[in-house]
């Protein structure tokens, strides 16, 4: 067990420049997530959930403020360093599977192992697929799999290199209820098994409910935090739980 990474955001702001002028997608958010815990970020469409995930997933740099993953401040890192961090420590599950169409299910999973420098010839990728009930589909290409199977392969890809921070962006958004529950269960089980930190973006309260903590966003600000009572969260702009 590698354990999870804590997450810290301090007065994080993200501004996008558009034809209509600057748009403040994230507006001075500050909170911390304990290592090994799970967090659901909820909110309506356009509230800044995905932008927040991009910042905590080291996909984007904030316009201002500070993002720490574990003890490392990632907001000041360059593209290469952030890429290194992503392939070694982070695991992503997206709304759609985003599998590489020219790779088999097994190759899609083992590619992540190769990227993280752990392509050691072990049966880990295949074992994980078997665990997820995809042993027979390992040699199939994404277009030969059902939607649920593809998303399970995507989960396997996100978990195969034992990330310490798992980030899921609406992971059940494109699935039916049954498959959604399966995926959610898989993520929670993996988190429990590896001790990784889990951050899930969702607008579905049913998905958010089982997680340790729930943060609600609106217009780029935190408007509610389930952990506020036990562990106060400072939300810039005065919003508190």
């Amino acid at each position: 067990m590698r354990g999870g990474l804590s997450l810290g955001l301090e007065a994080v702001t993200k501004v996008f420049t558009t034809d209509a002028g600057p748009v403040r997608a994230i507006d001075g958010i500050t909170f911390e997530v304990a290592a090994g815990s799970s967090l659901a970020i909820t909110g309506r469409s356009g509230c800044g959930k995905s932008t927040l995930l991009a910042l905590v997933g080291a996909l984007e740099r904030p316009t201002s403020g500070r993002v720490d993953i574990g003890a490392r401040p990632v907001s000041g890192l360059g593209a290469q360093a952030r890429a290194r961090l992503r392939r070694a420590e982070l695991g992503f599950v997206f709304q759609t599977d985003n599998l590489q169409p020219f790779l088999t299910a097994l190759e899609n999973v083992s590619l992540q192992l190769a990227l993280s420098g752990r392509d050691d010839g072990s049966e880990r990728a295949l074992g994980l697929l078997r665990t997820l009930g995809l042993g027979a589909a390992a040699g199939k290409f994404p277009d030969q799999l059902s939607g649920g199977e593809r998303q399970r392969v995507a989960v396997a890809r996100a978990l195969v290199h034992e990330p310490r921070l798992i980030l899921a962006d609406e992971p059940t958004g494109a699935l039916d209820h049954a498959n959604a529950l399966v995926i959610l269960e898989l993520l929670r089980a993996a988190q429990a098994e590896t001790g990784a930190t889990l951050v899930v973006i969702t607008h579905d309260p049913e998905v958010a409910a089982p997680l340790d903590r729930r943060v609600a966003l609106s217009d780029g600000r935190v408007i509610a935090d389930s952990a506020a009572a036990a562990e106060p969260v400072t939300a810039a702009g005065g919003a508190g739980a």
Partner: protein
Amino acid sequence: MRSYARRDLLRNPRRTLASLVGVVLGVGLFSAVLFFVDGSGASMTKRAIAPVAIDLQRVLTSPLGEGVRLQQRLGATGPLHRGERTRVRLTVRNLGAAPAHEVLVKDRLPAALAYVARSARRGGRRLADPGGESPFAHGPGHVGLTVGTVAPGTTVRLDYAVRATRRLPGAAVRPSATISTRERPVPERANRPDLVPLDRLRDRVAALPGIAAADQLAFADLPPSSLQAGTATLDRPIKVFGFERAYAERYPAIRVAAGGFARDGALLSPAAARGLGVRPGDHMRLHVPGARRPARLAVSGIVDLSRARALFNSREGLKLEDFLYLPDAIVISPGAFRRLVVPAFREALAARGTALAVKSPPTLEIDVRLDRAPLAADPGRALRQTRAVAARVRRVAPGQDFMLDNLSNTLAVAEQDAAVAKRMFLFLGLPGLLLAAFLAAYSGSVLAASQRREHANLRLRGAGPRQLRSLVAYRTAILAGAGALLGTAAGFATVLAILGPSALFEAATGRLAVSAALALGASLVAAGLAMFVPGWLALRRDVSGERRELALERRPTARRLALELAALVVALAATLFAIRRGAFDAASGQVSTGRATALASHTLLLPLGVWVAGTLLAARLLQRAAGRLPVTPPPRFGPVVRGLLARTLSRRSRALATGIVGVGLVIAFGTGLAVFAATYDAAKAADARFTNGSSLRVTPSPASATPHPAAYARALEVPGVAAATPVIAGRENAVARSAFNSDVADLAAIDPRGFARTAALSDEDFPHTTAAAALRALHADPTAALLDADTADALRLKVGDRAEVLLARGTRHQQLRTLRVAGVFDRFPGFPEGLDVVVDLGTFRHATGITETDFFLARAGDPSAAGLGAATAALQAGPGSTDRLHVDTTQTTFNKEQSSLTALNVRGLVDVDSVYTLAMTAAVIGIFIFALMLQRRREYVVLRAQGLPTRELLALIAGEATVVAAGGLLAGMVVGGALGALLVKVLKPLFILSPVTVLPFADAARLATLLALATVTCALAALGLLRRLRPSEVLRET
């Protein structure tokens, strides 16, 4: 939808540019070829007619006077009623000085008149009706009445009755009788007008519109001993010319070397002056057969006629335009010719009693120079103009002469060559149109793929199929229209840059406009369809269809492979069939000899077939090879970039094959053109060397007082000249005889060893042996001779046989020798018009005593234009400073002797093609990489999100582009080599010698380098795009 399409194109500039660039380049190439055809075709007239010595000639058929003449009269003067009879009276008069033999009068009546049986009379005595028909037109051949010999000054009267078979107006009854004689076998119509004196004919012709000048020219051949000065007698045949000073000024090849024209004087050729030992101011005597006493003439000057084609070109049908030069000549005025020569010939005929006593009567003619400035640039239009002028000239006092329309004859050949050139050039331009269509389809499919999501969104918002079709149609119309416009403008600009404004604008504006319209129209259709169809098909597909299209290529390529293999086999089989049928063996052409280049147009399709089918097959083979690329077996993935590259190449080989086909087609076209251009240059240089004999040909001026023995060759070995060798040669200067046959021959005497070192010899010209072996055989045996294969056939001689050869025929040096046939040749360098016999120079000199050399062949150390120039300058500064030497180089010969087809700027066309090939090479790679960026953007974003560094992503893209470039290069080079070789074979008739295919490694390296540069440049551009690729895009699913 129109507005949406416009905004879509404007707001996606990269996508729009990628779609446009291919169309612009393809259309640019196609239109450039069309403009090039116009521009260079326009210069064909000028080039074709430049060597024509005399534009029009009216040659008198009765130079010595009227001769026999036929008058025809009809008894009735008014209209004839049906059944009415009248008499036809025919009067034959001999107005000449000699009898007319075998006089034949023929009168084939029109359908409205019928001969009245037993009505024909001669001098009042009834003539028999052969077979019951008119004696003036009887039998199946409508044979006429043989009158027999008509003595000078006598008249024969004939008449017969006719009956009208229907009512005939008076004017409808015209003379229909003709007369011919043994002396003048061409039938002449009755009632020809009175002869117009030559000077009046000249004045009337000169006054016609379109005529620049008309001059009298008279000449006659005189036997040996016709010229004397003091005790010296010229014992060779001479030619006496009669023309004015103005004529000499009009034809600059007539060069007065000393003195000048004088009213009662005469100019002598240098050889004649030397033979008589006279100089200007001296006197001589001219004996003309039939003259009572010789004419005493003052030598007023020396004139060099050795290059005067107007004077020595044959006027006889079989040898028309042959340069039959006689070194001994005298020039007098036309008046003196009329006074001294014509009456004497007339007397000679009268005295001997038969016209055949004088072998060839004098020739009297009007030489006409057309105003060439208004002639259209296009040979076809120019031909119609010259024919119109010729018709006007012919209408002036007709019936007393025949006309040679040399200019129209030449233009008729040039017109055929121009038609061949257009077909050839269009063939070379057709790939441009195909490439434009391919690039348009390629970028169109890229565009269609990238717009699927947009179209799906529009569908979601309620856009119907018709609206989406309109959207694709608007977008296609804008892109194809803009591409066609920009491409046509680019094509025009390219040709303007390569040909220059003067050459391009020589073409008629209307013609250029037609080409522009054709380029626009054809490109709009080709590019429009190529762009619209993929978009339209994409709209027609349902979701599962789209998925199928996006699905990986897992079907075997065998079926496609078999199809392309079959296409290639068909193209190759057709090529072999064409070779066996001799389709590539058409004769080469030359305007100056009246031969158009024969080019089987259908054979032009063969290289096109090989190009397309070959490239497709090569790409398919490479696709198959890519499908078998080894990948790391599971559970390992292997090195990330290499693993991704191998898997994407092997599993998405269709995209790879499309890229390879694009690059391969362009590279194959470029390589094929490079092979053709290199071979063309080498072949034309070889042709020029063959025609010239060597890189330099030095001809001493006949006016030179310096002797030119064989040893003079050493004096010509100046710096820049590696070797020189003497040649004695002449037209009809020998007679070759065997037991079976005998014929007048053209003979050359050479120094075999020097000739082997100097001349442009080719083993191909010596059947069953080599050039070196043939010359060794000639050198080894003083009695040896080499024979032209046709001459050997005519004389039924083979190697080893003996033949009698009369050397120096028609001179006092002539000698009969028995020679052994030591070898046979098909062609001999330096004699493009043919040569019959080659003997050793020593043998010839020993037999005849002739030491003067006609010309020397010299080989320049450096065959480049600069080297030739330097060698020519050294020759003129060296031996040429004291002795007038005329130096022909391969360059000057090339300009002079080419066909109007090869006179075309083929190299320029190849340059046009090359410019576009290079640009299209870069464009195909650019479109390929752009397509990757467009179609696989999502994959790359995910990989970036997964942590793949930008440089590794770039390596993946560059790797794929490199494989496409390398595969396309390999396929293109192989197919291009074959295409070039085939192209050379098809265009073989352009050359005299069989062209040897040249592989231009430098050009190939240049193409490969450019492809590599284009790949690197496009990869760097991709790097810029990749850097702007935001991995967070993966979080946006809309």
